[in-house]
């Protein structure tokens, strides 16, 4: 048997653990990663020349981060590692990559996509003003560049990152003006039995709350964001929210970090023609995978948050399981006991994940209340009112139809940041179930592709 051509996309927790298992089985995978350095988003490494310690960068996860980075270092000579390389298309069992202006078509026998996740966003009026960032962005500014996104930062939205990043800002000496959670305390209490599936993680969350309280940060739960105030020229100046009693409050700030947990990056799965299914729990379309990460396209495996959001340690397990699935499909032996143990471990994580979904729910109901003048698609500057117009006057009740008429999702980000909310706006305006709206078809390139690229043979 000739050397199998195996490609792993993504050098985060899932990709690195996947590559590790493949290497141990005697395969030398190509490891394609968009970043300059390994680690993915969660264990993103600071640039060369930065000096902060692991504990200051990764907090309670410092040892896991260090372990992953060390694993990668020891793998480095045994994988064909291609950093700063974008996988921009999949066609005819070839992965198309671009790096430094050169595009290549890499044929594969098996492909493991560990594409990670990006923030899940619900628009709020004024979120287009300079100074509104995704929750992930606020964290990257700090972790990777040692910066705060502003002098007075409000953290708004919901999800575990809300408290984590706010606490990281406090510890780093930034001024946190408020933490505004759309979820209520009650929901978190009710989710406790499921969250207790991972006591350590739950305790970490409690300790974040303590950090925030200790620093005197205003934390309000059960809110709804009303408007981010600002000016075209200077950007964000404040945020107004409605509290549970119906009163509105304004907090002055020059930056807002906004996010509602994260969503998988599924463009490559889509281009690989994997089937998707509607996940009613999280109200989104996800690629169909079996328990080990096999997609519906033979030879294509999906692992980590890019398939199902389980967090970093869940991604490490998913990476290994996908690698074993791939090896098994190629006729290699796999360690059954170890695999069974990891599957069980992941089940506990899945209970915790369900707990997170219940504790920090996606605020679908906000979509119907978005004022008409609020921008839904930041790239194309298309408002909720325009999107509702194509539903009501042009009968566009399907996601791609609404996009074709309104341009919501047609811009540079290709619907990453407006797709979920746009579908909710359409569903609410049309009075139909979200599932019926369908999902935006993924189209290449995964990210903008320079027209100056040169083609080179591998």
């Amino acid at each position: 048997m000739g050397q199998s051509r195996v490609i792993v996309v993504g050098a985060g927790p899932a990709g690195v653990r996947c590559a590790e298992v493949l290497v141990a089985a005697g395969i030398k995978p190509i490891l394609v990663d968009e970043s300059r350095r390994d680690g993915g988003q969660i264990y993103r490494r600071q640039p060369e020349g930065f000096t902060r310690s692991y504990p200051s960068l990764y907090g309670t996860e410092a040892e896991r981060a260090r372990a992953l980075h060390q694993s990668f270092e020891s793998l480095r000579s045994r994988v064909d590692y291609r950093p700063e390389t974008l996988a921009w298309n999949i066609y005819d069992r070839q992965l198309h990559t671009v790096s430094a202006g050169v595009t290549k078509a890499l044929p594969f026998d098996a492909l493991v996509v560990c594409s990670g996740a990006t923030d899940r966003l619900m628009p709020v009026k004024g979120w287009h003003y300079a100074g509104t960032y995704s929750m992930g962005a606020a964290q990257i500014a700090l972790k990777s560049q040692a910066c705060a996104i502003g002098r007075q930062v409000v953290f708004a939205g919901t999800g575990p990152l809300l408290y984590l990043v706010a606490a990281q800002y406090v510890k780093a000496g930034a001024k946190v003006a408020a933490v505004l959670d759309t979820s209520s305390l009650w929901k978190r209490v009710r989710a406790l039995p499921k969250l207790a599936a991972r006591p350590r993680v739950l305790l970490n969350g409690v300790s974040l709350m303590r950090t925030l309280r200790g620093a005197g940060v205003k934390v309000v739960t059960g809110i709804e964001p009303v408007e981010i105030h600002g000016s075209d020229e200077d950007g964000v100046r404040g945020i107004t929210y409605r509290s549970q009693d119906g009163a509105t409050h304004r907090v002055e700030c020059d930056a807002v970090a906004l996010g509602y947990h994260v969503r998988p990056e599924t463009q490559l799965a889509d281009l690989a023609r994997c089937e998707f299914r509607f996940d009613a729990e999280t109200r989104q379309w996800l690629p169909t995978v079996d328990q080990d990460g096999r997609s519906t396209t033979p030879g294509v495996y999906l692992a980590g948050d890019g398939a199902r959001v389980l967090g970093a340690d869940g991604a490490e397990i998913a990476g290994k399981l996908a690698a074993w699935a791939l090896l098994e499909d190629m006729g290699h032996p796999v360690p059954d006991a170890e695999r069974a143990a990891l599957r069980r471990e992941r089940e506990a994580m899945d209970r915790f994940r369900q707990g997170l979904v219940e504790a920090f729910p996606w605020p679908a109901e906000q979509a119907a209340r978005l004022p008409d003048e609020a921008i839904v698609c930041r790239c194309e500057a298309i408002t909720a009112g325009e999107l509702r117009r194509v539903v009501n006057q042009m009968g566009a009740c399907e996601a791609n139809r609404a996009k074709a008429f309104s341009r919501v999702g047609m811009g540079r980000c290709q619907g990453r940041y407006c797709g979920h909310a746009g579908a909710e706006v359409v569903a609410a305006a049309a009075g139909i179930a979200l599932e019926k709206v369908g999902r935006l078809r993924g189209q290449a390139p995964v990210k903008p592709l320079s027209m100056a690229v040169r083609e080179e043979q591998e």
Partner: protein
Amino acid sequence: MTGRFVRLAETGRAPVRFELDGAPAEALAGDTLLVAVLSNARSVRSSEFGDDRRAGFCLMGACQDCWVWTAAGERLRSCTTVVEEGMQIVTTQPEGSWAKVA
């Protein structure tokens, strides 16, 4: 001109000089171009479809909100580009000049 981003640590790095809208500006070695610009200014570009200024959004190369022009008419995604000595960055729309080629 006040910056948008606030440096909290790692300030001992070597300075990098670049040009922002024709004026001299300073960043630190290892800064992304986005951080370099936003340490000096409030925004990196204007929206094509409104009067509002933009300052990036995701910082991980996904949202494509932070593309800037260079004085020579090249396009750079500032959050995934490392600032380099002597870069000339323009934060306004170039109007028709983008199509002119020397």
